[in-house]
């Protein structure tokens, strides 16, 4: 694939973030725009389509996150971009990583899955974080996507490129149904109903074995070729790392735009106080359904891609409660309701556990999920804001260090600098508290 050289460029950009005037801060942002092209290609075009609706509002204000006021207030003119830039910079840098890791398939696979799980947590976050409607069965959409494209391909010879939109359409329809049934109700009904659906689908997937392969799972034919969305063994992992990176970037940018779009504001309004939002004229049901459908479509897309990546799916995994919980877990650990949180959560938890498992092969089965469970309890009880809550303190710290450092050099501190300096460390944490 030709993506490798292109996305190495951003990784070089990322290196000297301290030299940040308006121009250099802007550059990585532009890079990110280019880097988004593969998102359209690899992601079947879906994530790219939706955000356009939000473009007019998003463009102008996406730069200065509300809680970033502190950082941007002091900023000189160039600092206006300081909130968008870190996000772009962080992801652009990550796009260079797969190429660097090409020699070690193990790490490359971890990285690829971090992108995928981060994207799935991000998709979960759209309905659960932004709209505040918690789904405990998002694997239903993941599994639906995986089974739709795989069944069409394995049983009917239909290219996954066509299977993916079919899966997404089915997922949107399912989300609309669940949404119409439960989103009128308050409280935890949606969580319960999504659990019911994922369990129901697992039962059905196990039962209709002629179609789904039953509990032994479904093998996806291995016929390398772009038309089949299957890649030959030699560079397969690298390609998939980029496909998942593109998906991740797509989800991330979509969430960023969503935050500053009219829909995003309506979501925030209904999350904070549904009755008040309704009184102000927000069509809460429509807003909830839209976010749920969007979330389901992205999750389904991830499921289809996962099936093509693994070339094998089994109902006990792709339609499990564990997988559903994992989506939520990454988003919660990273920070619910922020664009970058899910990726931080996935980027911290998934490698940590995979590496610890490979370092201590004697760990019993169940160890990973035990740690996930404990981490979830600790996270919601003691750090309900997630890792993104570390953003502001770190930013202050960095500013302090930057200031003293520059005072010693006898130079006036430029806020654009410090903000950019942060990018390297904490990435896009800024936008989170919308």
């Amino acid at each position, binding site marked *: 694939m030709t993506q490798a050289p292109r996305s190495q460029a951003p990784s070089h950009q990322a290196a000297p973030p301290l030299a940040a005037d308006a121009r250099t801060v802007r550059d990585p942002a532009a890079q990110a725009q280019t880097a988004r092209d593969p998102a359209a290609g690899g992601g079947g075009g879906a994530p790219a389509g939706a955000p356009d609706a939000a473009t007019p509002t998003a463009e102008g204000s996406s730069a200065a996150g509300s809680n970033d006021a502190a950082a941007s207030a002091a900023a000189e003119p160039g600092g206006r971009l300081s909130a968008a830039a870190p996000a772009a910079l962080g992801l652009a840098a990550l796009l260079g990583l797969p190429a660097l890791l090409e020699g070690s398939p193990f790490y490359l696979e971890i990285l690829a899955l971090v992108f995928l799980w981060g994207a799935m947590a991000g998709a979960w976050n759209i309905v659960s974080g932004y709209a505040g409607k*918690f789904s405990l069965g998002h694997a239903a959409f993941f599994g639906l996507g995986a089974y739709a494209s795989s069944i069409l391909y394995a049983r009917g010879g239909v290219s996954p490129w066509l299977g993916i939109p079919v899966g997404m359409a089915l997922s949107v329809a399912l989300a609309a149904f669940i949404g119409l*049934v439960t989103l009128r109700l308050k409280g935890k009904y949606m969580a319960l109903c999504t659990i*019911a*659906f994922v369990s129901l689908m697992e*039962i059905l997937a196990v*039962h209709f074995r002629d179609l789904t392969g039953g509990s032994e799972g479904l093998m996806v034919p291995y016929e390398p070729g772009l038309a089949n969305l299957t890649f030959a063994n030699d560079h397969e992992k690298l390609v998939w790392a980029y496909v998942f990176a593109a998906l991740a970037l797509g989800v991330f940018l979509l969430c960023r735009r969503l935050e500053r779009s009219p829909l995003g504001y309506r979501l925030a309004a209904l999350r904070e106080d549904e009755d008040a939002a309704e009184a102000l004229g927000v069509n809460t049901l429509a807003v909830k359904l839209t976010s749920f459908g969007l979330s389901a479509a992205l999750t389904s897309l991830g499921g289809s891609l996962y099936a093509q990546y693994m070339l094998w799916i089994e109902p006990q995994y792709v339609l499990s409660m564990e997988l559903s919980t994992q989506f*939520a877990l990454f988003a919660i650990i990273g920070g619910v309701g922020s664009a970058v949180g899910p990726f931080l959560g996935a980027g911290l938890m998934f490698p940590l556990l995979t590496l610890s498992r490979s370092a201590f092969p004697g760990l*019993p089965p169940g160890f990973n*999920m035990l740690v996930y*469970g404990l981490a979830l309890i600790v996270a919601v009880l003691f750090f309900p804001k997630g890792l993104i809550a570390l953003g502001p303190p770190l930013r202050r710290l960095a500013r302090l260090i930057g200031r003293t450092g520059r005072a010693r050099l006898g130079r006036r501190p430029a806020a654009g600098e410090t903000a950019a300096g942060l990018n390297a460390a904490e990435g896009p944490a800024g936008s989170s508290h919308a």
Partner: protein
Amino acid sequence: MDSSIIWQLAASGLLIGGVYALISIGLTLIFGVMRIVNFAHGEFLMASMFAAYWIHELTGLTPYWSAPLIGLLMFGFGALTHRLIISRTLNSPMVVQIFATVGLGLAMQNLALVFFSGDYRTIRAAAAQAVVRFGPVQVSQSLVAAFGVAVVVSALLLAFVSWTYPGLAIRATVQNRVAARLYGINIERVHLWTFALGSGLVGLAGALISMTYPIYPSAGQNFGLASFVVVVLGGMGSMTGALVGGLLIGLVETVSGFLIGDDLKKAVYFVMFILVLTLRPTGLFGRRGSEEIGIK
């Protein structure tokens, strides 16, 4: 169809329904009083089943005799869980309320997997094999016991809530937490006792079904899901609803298992669940509007 088959189906269905009811009563009690859904409920059940297994392995005590002890153990475990986790979540945003118990369930299930592996275990006691005959109908003795306990416990619980002073305090808390506090009810204590009581009941249930069902780390998951279905069907917070809903789900499961096969029978009650949510979200016995109160 042979009439004896119908009787057999009805008897098995009602008995299994009694088990579901017993499992669900604790869940609905906790929900009604505290407005939280304990997503780890199934894992509490699984823990009780393992407790019954190990007590039987180590001391030879059959689950009939260890059931009260396990009920007490789970009562204590519930109190501890409330102190350490639940009490911190009651006034928190929904994400905290949901995922604290989701995390607890995940941790408990996998703790069991780490310690006991995923093997199926069964209690090999004479009592586990015993059957009871009623005319043409043959049913497992342990299920009859579980059913009996379910009926007695629900009756006792209803009496407790209706006629005793602590029961009055519980009902007051259900109606209006703030007003109850103004009348001098110690809400924290009511919550603590409710959660412990609900956990103790599921402990009792776990011990009683441990002779009938295989014991393994995710054994609680299906029962947990079934009890959510029962509770929503009966009306969240309604104890009569849990009893009737449990019996209904047991019957439906048994009959559909007979008609369409074992592997699809659970699909039927999930479909029922979705239908209830669509048509009557308050459940059979829920008060109108109870699906909306206080659980935001």
